[in-house]
Protein backbone atom coordinates (compact mmCIF):
# COMPACT_ATOMS: atom_id res chain seq x y z
CA UNK A 1 0.00 0.00 0.00
CA UNK A 2 1.81 3.09 1.18
CA UNK A 3 5.03 1.94 2.75
CA UNK A 4 8.27 2.94 1.09
CA UNK A 5 11.00 0.37 0.57
CA UNK A 6 14.19 1.52 2.19
CA UNK A 7 16.57 1.50 -0.78
CA UNK A 8 19.22 2.79 1.54
CA UNK A 9 19.82 -0.83 2.43
CA UNK A 10 21.29 -1.40 -0.99
CA UNK A 11 24.30 0.68 -0.21
CA UNK A 12 25.42 -2.00 2.20
CA UNK A 13 25.83 -4.51 -0.60
CA UNK A 14 29.55 -4.70 -0.74
CA UNK A 15 30.94 -2.90 -3.76
CA UNK A 16 34.09 -5.03 -3.72
CA UNK A 17 31.82 -8.06 -4.16
CA UNK A 18 30.22 -6.67 -7.28
CA UNK A 19 33.62 -5.75 -8.59
CA UNK A 20 34.84 -9.27 -7.98
CA UNK A 21 31.89 -10.66 -9.84
CA UNK A 22 32.50 -8.37 -12.78
CA UNK A 23 36.15 -9.39 -12.96
CA UNK A 24 35.05 -13.01 -12.83
CA UNK A 25 32.69 -12.30 -15.68
CA UNK A 26 35.42 -10.73 -17.78
CA UNK A 27 37.83 -13.54 -17.09
CA UNK A 28 35.46 -16.36 -17.69
CA UNK A 29 35.93 -18.13 -20.95
CA UNK A 30 33.02 -18.62 -23.26
CA UNK A 31 33.11 -22.37 -22.85
CA UNK A 32 33.07 -22.03 -19.09
CA UNK A 33 30.15 -19.67 -19.28
CA UNK A 34 28.23 -21.97 -21.61
CA UNK A 35 28.92 -24.87 -19.29
CA UNK A 36 27.43 -22.96 -16.41
CA UNK A 37 24.52 -21.89 -18.55
CA UNK A 38 23.66 -25.42 -19.60
CA UNK A 39 23.88 -26.56 -16.01
CA UNK A 40 21.61 -23.74 -15.05
CA UNK A 41 19.09 -24.68 -17.71
CA UNK A 42 19.18 -28.26 -16.52
CA UNK A 43 18.63 -27.30 -12.92
CA UNK A 44 15.97 -24.84 -13.98
CA UNK A 45 14.11 -27.58 -15.83
CA UNK A 46 14.10 -29.77 -12.76
CA UNK A 47 12.85 -26.92 -10.62
CA UNK A 48 10.18 -26.20 -13.22
CA UNK A 49 8.88 -29.77 -13.17
CA UNK A 50 8.48 -29.71 -9.41
CA UNK A 51 7.16 -26.17 -9.28
CA UNK A 52 4.28 -27.10 -11.57
CA UNK A 53 2.95 -29.46 -8.94
CA UNK A 54 2.89 -26.70 -6.33
CA UNK A 55 1.26 -24.19 -8.59
CA UNK A 56 -1.49 -26.53 -9.78
CA UNK A 57 -2.45 -27.58 -6.29
CA UNK A 58 -2.41 -24.02 -5.03
CA UNK A 59 -4.43 -22.89 -8.01
CA UNK A 60 -7.15 -25.42 -7.24
CA UNK A 61 -7.17 -25.61 -3.48
CA UNK A 62 -5.40 -22.43 -2.35
CA UNK A 63 -3.21 -24.82 -0.42
CA UNK A 64 0.57 -24.94 -0.13
CA UNK A 65 1.22 -28.65 -0.51
CA UNK A 66 4.19 -28.86 1.82
CA UNK A 67 4.36 -32.59 1.20
CA UNK A 68 5.14 -32.16 -2.50
CA UNK A 69 8.88 -31.97 -1.92
CA UNK A 70 8.66 -35.18 0.05
CA UNK A 71 6.72 -36.91 -2.67
CA UNK A 72 9.61 -35.95 -4.91
CA UNK A 73 11.93 -37.57 -2.37
CA UNK A 74 9.85 -40.74 -2.23
CA UNK A 75 10.04 -41.02 -6.01
CA UNK A 76 13.82 -41.13 -5.88
CA UNK A 77 13.63 -43.94 -3.36
CA UNK A 78 11.11 -45.84 -5.47
CA UNK A 79 13.55 -45.58 -8.36
CA UNK A 80 16.42 -46.69 -6.15
CA UNK A 81 14.67 -49.79 -4.89
CA UNK A 82 13.28 -50.65 -8.33
CA UNK A 83 16.70 -50.63 -9.91
CA UNK A 84 18.92 -51.76 -7.04
CA UNK A 85 16.78 -54.19 -5.07
CA UNK A 86 14.49 -55.49 -7.77
CA UNK A 87 17.09 -55.11 -10.48
CA UNK A 88 14.55 -53.91 -13.02
CA UNK A 89 15.88 -52.30 -16.16
CA UNK A 90 15.71 -48.53 -16.14
CA UNK A 91 12.93 -48.13 -18.66
CA UNK A 92 10.63 -50.34 -16.61
CA UNK A 93 11.73 -48.81 -13.30
CA UNK A 94 11.15 -45.26 -14.46
CA UNK A 95 7.68 -46.08 -15.68
CA UNK A 96 6.86 -47.85 -12.44
CA UNK A 97 8.16 -44.95 -10.40
CA UNK A 98 5.93 -42.50 -12.19
CA UNK A 99 2.91 -44.70 -11.60
CA UNK A 100 3.69 -45.28 -7.93
CA UNK A 101 4.41 -41.64 -7.22
CA UNK A 102 1.19 -40.61 -8.91
CA UNK A 103 -0.70 -42.98 -6.67
CA UNK A 104 1.15 -41.69 -3.63
CA UNK A 105 0.19 -38.13 -4.45
CA UNK A 106 -3.46 -39.07 -4.82
CA UNK A 107 -3.33 -41.01 -1.60
CA UNK A 108 -1.84 -38.08 0.31
CA UNK A 109 -4.65 -35.85 -0.89
CA UNK A 110 -7.30 -38.34 0.12
CA UNK A 111 -5.81 -38.91 3.55
CA UNK A 112 -4.65 -35.49 4.66
CA UNK A 113 -6.42 -32.84 2.64
CA UNK A 114 -9.82 -34.07 1.56
CA UNK A 115 -11.24 -34.64 5.06
CA UNK A 116 -10.49 -31.10 6.14
CA UNK A 117 -11.15 -29.26 2.94
CA UNK A 118 -13.53 -26.87 4.65
CA UNK A 119 -11.62 -26.42 7.87
CA UNK A 120 -9.95 -23.14 8.83
CA UNK A 121 -6.87 -22.33 6.79
CA UNK A 122 -4.48 -22.95 9.63
CA UNK A 123 -5.65 -26.53 10.15
CA UNK A 124 -5.14 -27.36 6.50
CA UNK A 125 -1.68 -25.87 6.64
CA UNK A 126 -0.79 -27.89 9.73
CA UNK A 127 -2.09 -31.02 8.11
CA UNK A 128 0.08 -30.34 5.07
CA UNK A 129 3.15 -29.74 7.19
CA UNK A 130 2.31 -32.74 9.33
CA UNK A 131 2.04 -34.93 6.26
CA UNK A 132 5.39 -33.62 5.08
CA UNK A 133 7.08 -34.51 8.36
CA UNK A 134 5.32 -37.83 8.43
CA UNK A 135 6.72 -38.78 5.03
CA UNK A 136 10.19 -37.58 5.97
CA UNK A 137 10.22 -39.55 9.18
CA UNK A 138 8.67 -42.59 7.57
CA UNK A 139 11.41 -42.54 4.96
CA UNK A 140 14.02 -42.22 7.71
CA UNK A 141 12.63 -45.21 9.54
CA UNK A 142 11.97 -47.42 6.52
CA UNK A 143 14.87 -46.51 4.25
CA UNK A 144 17.39 -45.50 6.88
CA UNK A 145 18.72 -42.03 7.52
CA UNK A 146 22.04 -42.47 5.74
CA UNK A 147 22.27 -41.20 2.17
CA UNK A 148 22.23 -43.76 -0.61
CA UNK A 149 23.84 -43.67 -4.02
CA UNK A 150 21.37 -43.35 -6.86
CA UNK A 151 22.12 -45.80 -9.67
CA UNK A 152 22.32 -43.67 -12.78
CA UNK A 153 22.32 -45.76 -15.95
CA UNK A 154 25.40 -45.16 -18.09
CA UNK A 155 23.37 -44.26 -21.09
CA UNK A 156 22.52 -40.98 -19.38
CA UNK A 157 25.72 -40.15 -17.60
CA UNK A 158 27.94 -40.57 -20.64
CA UNK A 159 29.93 -37.43 -21.29
CA UNK A 160 29.49 -35.83 -24.67
CA UNK A 161 31.37 -32.98 -26.26
CA UNK A 162 29.73 -30.08 -27.98
CA UNK A 163 32.26 -27.65 -29.26
CA UNK A 164 34.49 -26.81 -26.35
CA UNK A 165 32.17 -27.87 -23.57
CA UNK A 166 31.90 -31.32 -22.03
CA UNK A 167 28.70 -32.27 -20.35
CA UNK A 168 26.76 -35.35 -19.49
CA UNK A 169 24.13 -36.48 -21.97
CA UNK A 170 21.75 -35.98 -19.12
CA UNK A 171 22.28 -32.24 -19.06
CA UNK A 172 20.81 -31.97 -22.55
CA UNK A 173 18.18 -34.62 -22.00
CA UNK A 174 16.69 -32.90 -18.98
CA UNK A 175 15.48 -29.74 -20.70
CA UNK A 176 14.24 -31.77 -23.66
CA UNK A 177 12.23 -34.14 -21.50
CA UNK A 178 10.89 -31.21 -19.53
CA UNK A 179 9.84 -29.44 -22.68
CA UNK A 180 8.06 -32.53 -24.00
CA UNK A 181 6.15 -33.09 -20.77
CA UNK A 182 5.28 -29.43 -20.66
CA UNK A 183 3.74 -29.62 -24.10
CA UNK A 184 1.75 -32.65 -22.98
CA UNK A 185 0.57 -30.76 -19.95
CA UNK A 186 -0.46 -27.65 -21.84
CA UNK A 187 -2.34 -29.80 -24.31
CA UNK A 188 -4.01 -31.57 -21.43
CA UNK A 189 -5.03 -28.39 -19.70
CA UNK A 190 -6.20 -26.47 -22.71
CA UNK A 191 -7.59 -29.11 -25.05
CA UNK A 192 -9.11 -31.84 -22.97
CA UNK A 193 -12.23 -32.05 -20.88
CA UNK A 194 -10.31 -32.98 -17.75
CA UNK A 195 -8.11 -29.98 -18.28
CA UNK A 196 -11.11 -27.75 -18.62
CA UNK A 197 -12.48 -29.22 -15.43
CA UNK A 198 -9.22 -28.33 -13.69
CA UNK A 199 -9.35 -24.78 -14.92
CA UNK A 200 -12.96 -24.47 -13.90
CA UNK A 201 -12.38 -25.77 -10.40
CA UNK A 202 -9.44 -23.46 -9.88
CA UNK A 203 -11.46 -20.45 -10.96
CA UNK A 204 -14.56 -21.20 -8.94
CA UNK A 205 -14.89 -24.37 -6.95
CA UNK A 206 -18.58 -24.17 -6.16
CA UNK A 207 -19.84 -23.09 -9.53
CA UNK A 208 -17.83 -25.85 -11.15
CA UNK A 209 -19.49 -28.46 -9.00
CA UNK A 210 -22.93 -27.05 -9.73
CA UNK A 211 -22.10 -27.28 -13.40
CA UNK A 212 -21.57 -30.99 -13.03
CA UNK A 213 -17.83 -31.18 -12.64
CA UNK A 214 -16.76 -33.98 -10.35
CA UNK A 215 -14.67 -31.83 -8.06
CA UNK A 216 -13.16 -34.67 -6.06
CA UNK A 217 -12.01 -36.49 -9.15
CA UNK A 218 -10.60 -33.31 -10.63
CA UNK A 219 -8.64 -32.58 -7.51
CA UNK A 220 -7.27 -36.11 -7.39
CA UNK A 221 -6.35 -35.74 -11.02
CA UNK A 222 -4.49 -32.52 -10.29
CA UNK A 223 -2.52 -34.10 -7.48
CA UNK A 224 -1.81 -37.07 -9.69
CA UNK A 225 -0.39 -34.99 -12.51
CA UNK A 226 1.66 -32.85 -10.16
CA UNK A 227 3.11 -35.95 -8.57
CA UNK A 228 3.81 -37.59 -11.91
CA UNK A 229 5.78 -34.57 -13.05
CA UNK A 230 7.59 -34.50 -9.72
CA UNK A 231 8.48 -38.15 -10.30
CA UNK A 232 9.94 -37.36 -13.71
CA UNK A 233 11.91 -34.56 -12.10
CA UNK A 234 12.97 -36.83 -9.27
CA UNK A 235 14.33 -39.50 -11.58
CA UNK A 236 16.38 -37.01 -13.51
CA UNK A 237 17.46 -35.28 -10.31
CA UNK A 238 18.64 -38.59 -8.90
CA UNK A 239 20.76 -39.18 -11.97
CA UNK A 240 22.21 -35.68 -11.93
CA UNK A 241 22.82 -35.48 -8.17
CA UNK A 242 23.24 -39.13 -7.30
CA UNK A 243 22.98 -38.86 -3.53
CA UNK A 244 19.53 -39.44 -2.06
CA UNK A 245 18.45 -39.01 1.55
CA UNK A 246 15.14 -38.76 3.43
CA UNK A 247 15.41 -34.99 3.86
CA UNK A 248 16.52 -34.27 0.31
CA UNK A 249 13.12 -32.95 -0.65
CA UNK A 250 13.00 -30.13 1.89
CA UNK A 251 15.16 -27.51 0.21
CA UNK A 252 14.13 -28.28 -3.37
CA UNK A 253 10.52 -28.32 -2.20
CA UNK A 254 10.82 -24.91 -0.63
CA UNK A 255 12.73 -23.51 -3.59
CA UNK A 256 10.26 -24.87 -6.09
CA UNK A 257 7.38 -23.38 -4.21
CA UNK A 258 9.23 -20.09 -4.31
CA UNK A 259 9.70 -20.57 -8.05
CA UNK A 260 5.95 -21.00 -8.39
CA UNK A 261 5.34 -17.81 -6.41
CA UNK A 262 7.85 -15.87 -8.46
CA UNK A 263 6.16 -16.95 -11.64
CA UNK A 264 2.71 -16.23 -10.30
CA UNK A 265 1.15 -18.86 -8.10
CA UNK A 266 -1.61 -20.75 -9.85
CA UNK A 267 -0.09 -20.14 -13.27
CA UNK A 268 1.68 -23.07 -14.92
CA UNK A 269 3.73 -21.06 -17.42
CA UNK A 270 4.72 -18.89 -14.50
CA UNK A 271 5.92 -21.89 -12.54
CA UNK A 272 8.17 -22.89 -15.42
CA UNK A 273 9.53 -19.37 -15.82
CA UNK A 274 10.09 -19.19 -12.09
CA UNK A 275 11.89 -22.53 -12.13
CA UNK A 276 14.29 -21.38 -14.81
CA UNK A 277 14.94 -18.03 -13.17
CA UNK A 278 15.79 -19.81 -9.97
CA UNK A 279 17.87 -22.56 -11.54
CA UNK A 280 19.90 -20.38 -13.85
CA UNK A 281 20.23 -17.65 -11.26
CA UNK A 282 21.50 -20.04 -8.63
CA UNK A 283 24.16 -21.53 -10.89
CA UNK A 284 25.26 -18.15 -12.15
CA UNK A 285 25.51 -16.80 -8.63
CA UNK A 286 27.92 -19.54 -7.67
CA UNK A 287 29.78 -19.19 -10.96
CA UNK A 288 30.44 -15.48 -10.61
CA UNK A 289 30.74 -15.31 -6.85
CA UNK A 290 32.29 -18.61 -5.80
CA UNK A 291 32.94 -17.26 -2.32
CA UNK A 292 29.18 -16.92 -1.88
CA UNK A 293 28.55 -20.63 -2.48
CA UNK A 294 27.28 -21.04 1.06
CA UNK A 295 24.56 -18.54 0.32
CA UNK A 296 23.36 -20.46 -2.70
CA UNK A 297 20.14 -21.48 -1.01
CA UNK A 298 19.55 -17.97 0.26
CA UNK A 299 19.31 -16.78 -3.33
CA UNK A 300 15.86 -18.27 -3.71
CA UNK A 301 14.63 -16.67 -0.52
CA UNK A 302 16.00 -13.29 -1.41
CA UNK A 303 14.31 -13.46 -4.81
CA UNK A 304 11.12 -14.43 -3.00
CA UNK A 305 11.20 -11.43 -0.72
CA UNK A 306 11.97 -9.17 -3.65
CA UNK A 307 9.04 -10.45 -5.67
CA UNK A 308 6.67 -10.28 -2.74
CA UNK A 309 7.60 -6.69 -2.18
CA UNK A 310 7.45 -5.48 -5.74
CA UNK A 311 4.97 -7.73 -7.50
CA UNK A 312 3.37 -10.11 -5.03
CA UNK A 313 1.16 -11.72 -7.61
CA UNK A 314 4.24 -12.91 -9.47
CA UNK A 315 5.48 -12.44 -13.00
CA UNK A 316 2.43 -13.89 -14.70
CA UNK A 317 0.02 -13.20 -11.90
CA UNK A 318 -3.14 -11.15 -11.91
CA UNK A 319 -4.27 -8.71 -9.26
CA UNK A 320 -7.04 -9.93 -7.03
CA UNK A 321 -9.02 -7.24 -5.26
CA UNK A 322 -11.17 -7.74 -2.21
CA UNK A 323 -14.72 -6.42 -2.24
CA UNK A 324 -15.22 -4.05 0.62
Amino acid at each position, binding site marked *: *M*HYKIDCGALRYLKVPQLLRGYIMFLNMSLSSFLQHLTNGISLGSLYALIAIGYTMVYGILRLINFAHGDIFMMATYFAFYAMVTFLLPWYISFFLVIVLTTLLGILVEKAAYRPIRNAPKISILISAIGMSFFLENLATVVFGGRPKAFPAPDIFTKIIHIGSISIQRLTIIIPIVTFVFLLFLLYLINRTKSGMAMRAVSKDYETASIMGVDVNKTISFTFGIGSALAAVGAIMWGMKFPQIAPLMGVMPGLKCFIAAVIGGIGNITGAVIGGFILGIGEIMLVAFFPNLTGYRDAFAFILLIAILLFKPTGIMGEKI*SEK*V
Partner: protein
Amino acid sequence: MSLLKMNNVTMKFGGVTAVKDFNMELNKGEIVALIGPNGAGKTTAFNMITGVYKPTIGEVFYKDRNITHLRPDQITKLGIARTFQNIRLFKDLSVLDNVLIANHLHVKSNIFTAILRLPGYNKEERNMRRKSLELIEKVGLKDVINEKSSSLPYGMQRRLEIARALATDPEVLLLDEPAAGMNPKESEDLTIFIQKIRDEFDLTIFMIEHHMQVVMGISKRIYVFDYGVTIAKGSPYEIQNNEKVIEAYLGVNEEDA
Protein backbone atom coordinates in the same frame (compact mmCIF):
# COMPACT_ATOMS: atom_id res chain seq x y z
CA MET B 1 -16.88 26.12 3.54
CA SER B 2 -18.40 22.72 2.90
CA LEU B 3 -17.43 20.00 5.27
CA LEU B 4 -16.86 17.26 2.73
CA LYS B 5 -16.26 17.76 -0.94
CA MET B 6 -15.54 15.49 -3.87
CA ASN B 7 -14.25 17.05 -7.09
CA ASN B 8 -14.59 15.21 -10.40
CA VAL B 9 -13.93 11.92 -8.75
CA THR B 10 -13.61 8.91 -11.04
CA MET B 11 -12.84 5.33 -10.11
CA LYS B 12 -11.64 2.86 -12.71
CA PHE B 13 -10.89 -0.80 -12.09
CA GLY B 14 -9.00 -1.90 -15.16
CA GLY B 15 -11.50 -1.48 -17.96
CA VAL B 16 -14.51 -0.89 -15.73
CA THR B 17 -15.45 2.62 -14.66
CA ALA B 18 -17.25 2.20 -11.38
CA VAL B 19 -17.75 5.89 -10.68
CA LYS B 20 -17.58 8.61 -13.27
CA ASP B 21 -16.99 12.26 -12.57
CA PHE B 22 -18.72 12.50 -9.22
CA ASN B 23 -19.09 15.92 -7.68
CA MET B 24 -20.62 16.33 -4.29
CA GLU B 25 -20.69 18.61 -1.31
CA LEU B 26 -21.74 18.07 2.24
CA ASN B 27 -22.50 20.93 4.58
CA LYS B 28 -22.46 20.85 8.32
CA GLY B 29 -25.52 19.34 9.91
CA GLU B 30 -27.02 18.05 6.70
CA ILE B 31 -28.36 14.60 6.05
CA VAL B 32 -27.61 13.78 2.42
CA ALA B 33 -28.45 10.55 0.65
CA LEU B 34 -26.87 8.65 -2.23
CA ILE B 35 -29.27 6.33 -3.98
CA GLY B 36 -29.29 4.23 -7.12
CA PRO B 37 -29.77 0.67 -8.30
CA ASN B 38 -27.50 -2.08 -7.05
CA GLY B 39 -24.00 -2.03 -8.44
CA ALA B 40 -24.25 1.62 -9.37
CA GLY B 41 -21.01 2.47 -7.59
CA LYS B 42 -22.34 3.96 -4.37
CA THR B 43 -20.21 1.97 -1.97
CA THR B 44 -17.23 2.65 -4.23
CA ALA B 45 -17.85 6.34 -3.70
CA PHE B 46 -17.86 5.76 0.07
CA ASN B 47 -14.67 3.77 -0.20
CA MET B 48 -12.99 6.66 -1.95
CA ILE B 49 -13.97 9.05 0.81
CA THR B 50 -12.71 6.76 3.54
CA GLY B 51 -9.44 5.96 1.82
CA VAL B 52 -10.08 2.31 1.06
CA TYR B 53 -9.76 3.12 -2.64
CA LYS B 54 -7.69 5.83 -4.25
CA PRO B 55 -9.66 7.66 -6.94
CA THR B 56 -8.24 7.23 -10.41
CA ILE B 57 -9.00 10.87 -11.08
CA GLY B 58 -10.20 13.60 -8.81
CA GLU B 59 -9.87 14.65 -5.20
CA VAL B 60 -11.62 14.46 -1.89
CA PHE B 61 -11.55 17.37 0.52
CA TYR B 62 -12.46 17.41 4.17
CA LYS B 63 -12.69 20.87 5.69
CA ASP B 64 -10.68 22.18 2.77
CA ARG B 65 -7.92 19.65 3.42
CA ASN B 66 -7.05 17.23 0.63
CA ILE B 67 -7.57 13.75 2.05
CA THR B 68 -7.45 11.84 -1.22
CA HIS B 69 -4.24 10.00 -0.49
CA LEU B 70 -4.64 9.35 3.20
CA ARG B 71 -5.03 5.92 4.74
CA PRO B 72 -8.40 4.87 6.17
CA ASP B 73 -7.19 5.08 9.75
CA GLN B 74 -5.86 8.58 9.20
CA ILE B 75 -9.16 9.68 7.70
CA THR B 76 -11.09 8.24 10.61
CA LYS B 77 -8.82 10.10 13.01
CA LEU B 78 -9.70 13.32 11.20
CA GLY B 79 -13.37 12.77 11.95
CA ILE B 80 -15.01 10.69 9.22
CA ALA B 81 -16.54 7.38 10.34
CA ARG B 82 -18.48 4.77 8.42
CA THR B 83 -20.57 1.64 8.58
CA PHE B 84 -20.42 -1.18 6.06
CA GLN B 85 -22.98 -2.52 3.66
CA ASN B 86 -22.15 -6.11 4.58
CA ILE B 87 -21.84 -5.72 8.30
CA ARG B 88 -18.21 -5.94 9.36
CA LEU B 89 -18.38 -6.35 13.05
CA PHE B 90 -15.57 -8.02 14.97
CA LYS B 91 -17.47 -11.26 15.01
CA ASP B 92 -15.83 -13.18 17.79
CA LEU B 93 -15.66 -10.22 20.11
CA SER B 94 -18.35 -8.96 22.46
CA VAL B 95 -20.60 -5.97 21.87
CA LEU B 96 -18.64 -4.03 24.45
CA ASP B 97 -15.29 -4.90 22.90
CA ASN B 98 -16.50 -3.86 19.46
CA VAL B 99 -17.32 -0.40 20.77
CA LEU B 100 -14.24 -0.16 22.99
CA ILE B 101 -12.01 -0.87 20.01
CA ALA B 102 -13.45 2.12 18.21
CA ASN B 103 -12.14 4.26 21.07
CA HIS B 104 -8.56 3.09 20.57
CA LEU B 105 -7.68 5.72 18.03
CA HIS B 106 -7.88 8.39 20.71
CA VAL B 107 -5.58 6.63 23.16
CA LYS B 108 -2.56 8.74 23.96
CA SER B 109 -0.67 6.21 26.05
CA ASN B 110 1.85 4.11 24.22
CA ILE B 111 1.82 0.32 24.39
CA PHE B 112 4.32 0.14 27.21
CA THR B 113 2.48 2.50 29.54
CA ALA B 114 -0.65 0.54 28.71
CA ILE B 115 0.93 -2.78 29.66
CA LEU B 116 2.32 -1.30 32.87
CA ARG B 117 -1.09 0.13 33.70
CA LEU B 118 0.30 3.53 34.54
CA PRO B 119 -2.24 6.01 35.96
CA GLY B 120 -2.43 7.93 32.68
CA TYR B 121 -3.53 4.83 30.84
CA ASN B 122 -5.92 3.70 33.56
CA LYS B 123 -7.71 7.00 33.34
CA GLU B 124 -8.05 6.67 29.58
CA GLU B 125 -9.37 3.13 29.94
CA ARG B 126 -11.98 4.26 32.47
CA ASN B 127 -13.12 7.03 30.15
CA MET B 128 -13.33 4.66 27.22
CA ARG B 129 -15.48 2.26 29.16
CA ARG B 130 -17.77 4.98 30.38
CA LYS B 131 -18.20 6.42 26.90
CA SER B 132 -18.78 3.02 25.38
CA LEU B 133 -21.35 2.05 27.97
CA GLU B 134 -23.25 5.25 27.31
CA LEU B 135 -23.25 4.65 23.58
CA ILE B 136 -24.35 1.06 23.97
CA GLU B 137 -27.21 2.16 26.17
CA LYS B 138 -28.22 4.82 23.69
CA VAL B 139 -28.58 2.32 20.88
CA GLY B 140 -30.50 0.01 23.17
CA LEU B 141 -27.97 -2.81 23.34
CA LYS B 142 -27.30 -2.70 27.07
CA ASP B 143 -28.84 -6.11 27.70
CA VAL B 144 -26.53 -7.87 25.31
CA ILE B 145 -23.41 -5.95 26.12
CA ASN B 146 -21.31 -9.04 26.81
CA GLU B 147 -22.68 -11.22 24.05
CA LYS B 148 -20.61 -12.20 21.07
CA SER B 149 -21.47 -9.76 18.33
CA SER B 150 -22.05 -12.45 15.74
CA SER B 151 -24.74 -14.00 17.93
CA LEU B 152 -26.94 -10.91 17.78
CA PRO B 153 -29.98 -10.69 15.56
CA TYR B 154 -29.45 -8.76 12.37
CA GLY B 155 -31.16 -5.56 13.44
CA MET B 156 -29.06 -5.36 16.60
CA GLN B 157 -25.90 -5.94 14.60
CA ARG B 158 -26.71 -2.95 12.45
CA ARG B 159 -27.25 -0.83 15.55
CA LEU B 160 -23.95 -2.03 16.94
CA GLU B 161 -22.19 -1.01 13.75
CA ILE B 162 -23.57 2.48 14.15
CA ALA B 163 -22.61 2.63 17.82
CA ARG B 164 -19.11 1.52 16.91
CA ALA B 165 -18.76 4.21 14.28
CA LEU B 166 -20.04 6.80 16.75
CA ALA B 167 -17.42 5.76 19.27
CA THR B 168 -14.69 7.13 17.03
CA ASP B 169 -16.06 10.62 17.77
CA PRO B 170 -16.75 11.58 14.17
CA GLU B 171 -18.01 14.80 12.70
CA VAL B 172 -19.13 13.11 9.52
CA LEU B 173 -20.88 9.77 9.54
CA LEU B 174 -21.16 7.67 6.42
CA LEU B 175 -23.94 5.09 6.65
CA ASP B 176 -23.95 2.34 4.04
CA GLU B 177 -27.46 0.94 3.78
CA PRO B 178 -28.30 1.24 7.47
CA ALA B 179 -31.86 0.07 6.89
CA ALA B 180 -31.01 -3.03 4.89
CA GLY B 181 -33.08 -5.99 5.93
CA MET B 182 -35.35 -3.97 8.19
CA ASN B 183 -39.12 -4.12 8.21
CA PRO B 184 -41.16 -0.90 7.92
CA LYS B 185 -41.44 -0.44 11.67
CA GLU B 186 -37.70 -0.86 12.17
CA SER B 187 -37.01 1.52 9.30
CA GLU B 188 -39.23 4.09 10.93
CA ASP B 189 -37.37 3.71 14.22
CA LEU B 190 -34.12 4.00 12.34
CA THR B 191 -35.23 7.23 10.69
CA ILE B 192 -35.97 8.76 14.07
CA PHE B 193 -32.74 7.36 15.43
CA ILE B 194 -30.62 8.90 12.69
CA GLN B 195 -32.12 12.31 13.28
CA LYS B 196 -31.62 11.91 16.99
CA ILE B 197 -27.94 11.08 16.73
CA ARG B 198 -27.42 13.84 14.22
CA ASP B 199 -28.74 16.30 16.74
CA GLU B 200 -27.20 14.80 19.81
CA PHE B 201 -23.71 14.24 18.44
CA ASP B 202 -23.66 17.26 16.18
CA LEU B 203 -23.10 15.07 13.13
CA THR B 204 -23.27 15.48 9.42
CA ILE B 205 -24.59 12.39 7.72
CA PHE B 206 -24.05 10.99 4.25
CA MET B 207 -26.11 7.90 3.65
CA ILE B 208 -26.51 5.19 1.02
CA GLU B 209 -29.95 3.73 1.21
CA HIS B 210 -32.60 1.83 -0.75
CA HIS B 211 -35.52 2.25 1.65
CA MET B 212 -37.22 5.23 0.12
CA GLN B 213 -39.22 6.10 3.23
CA VAL B 214 -35.97 6.53 5.14
CA VAL B 215 -34.36 8.48 2.32
CA MET B 216 -37.25 10.78 1.51
CA GLY B 217 -38.14 11.21 5.15
CA ILE B 218 -34.97 12.75 6.42
CA SER B 219 -32.64 13.69 3.60
CA LYS B 220 -32.16 17.32 2.78
CA ARG B 221 -30.58 16.51 -0.57
CA ILE B 222 -30.15 13.40 -2.66
CA TYR B 223 -27.64 12.28 -5.29
CA VAL B 224 -28.66 9.53 -7.69
CA PHE B 225 -26.21 7.10 -9.30
CA ASP B 226 -26.73 4.78 -12.21
CA TYR B 227 -23.79 2.80 -13.62
CA GLY B 228 -21.44 5.14 -11.86
CA VAL B 229 -22.88 8.27 -13.39
CA THR B 230 -24.68 10.96 -11.39
CA ILE B 231 -28.01 11.12 -13.17
CA ALA B 232 -29.74 13.48 -10.82
CA LYS B 233 -29.31 15.56 -7.68
CA GLY B 234 -31.62 17.70 -5.68
CA SER B 235 -34.27 17.77 -3.01
CA PRO B 236 -36.43 14.68 -2.27
CA TYR B 237 -39.33 16.25 -4.14
CA GLU B 238 -37.24 16.93 -7.23
CA ILE B 239 -35.81 13.43 -7.23
CA GLN B 240 -39.16 11.75 -6.80
CA ASN B 241 -40.41 13.43 -9.93
CA ASN B 242 -37.28 13.04 -11.98
CA GLU B 243 -37.86 10.88 -15.06
CA LYS B 244 -34.31 9.61 -15.34
CA VAL B 245 -34.44 8.39 -11.76
CA ILE B 246 -37.69 6.55 -12.32
CA GLU B 247 -36.25 5.02 -15.45
CA ALA B 248 -33.11 3.86 -13.68
CA TYR B 249 -35.05 2.07 -10.99
CA LEU B 250 -37.96 0.74 -12.94
CA GLY B 251 -36.77 0.65 -16.51
CA VAL B 252 -38.60 2.15 -19.46
CA ASN B 253 -41.72 0.53 -20.80
CA GLU B 254 -41.84 1.04 -24.57
CA GLU B 255 -45.61 1.10 -24.70
CA ASP B 256 -45.90 3.69 -21.95
CA ALA B 257 -43.26 6.02 -23.37
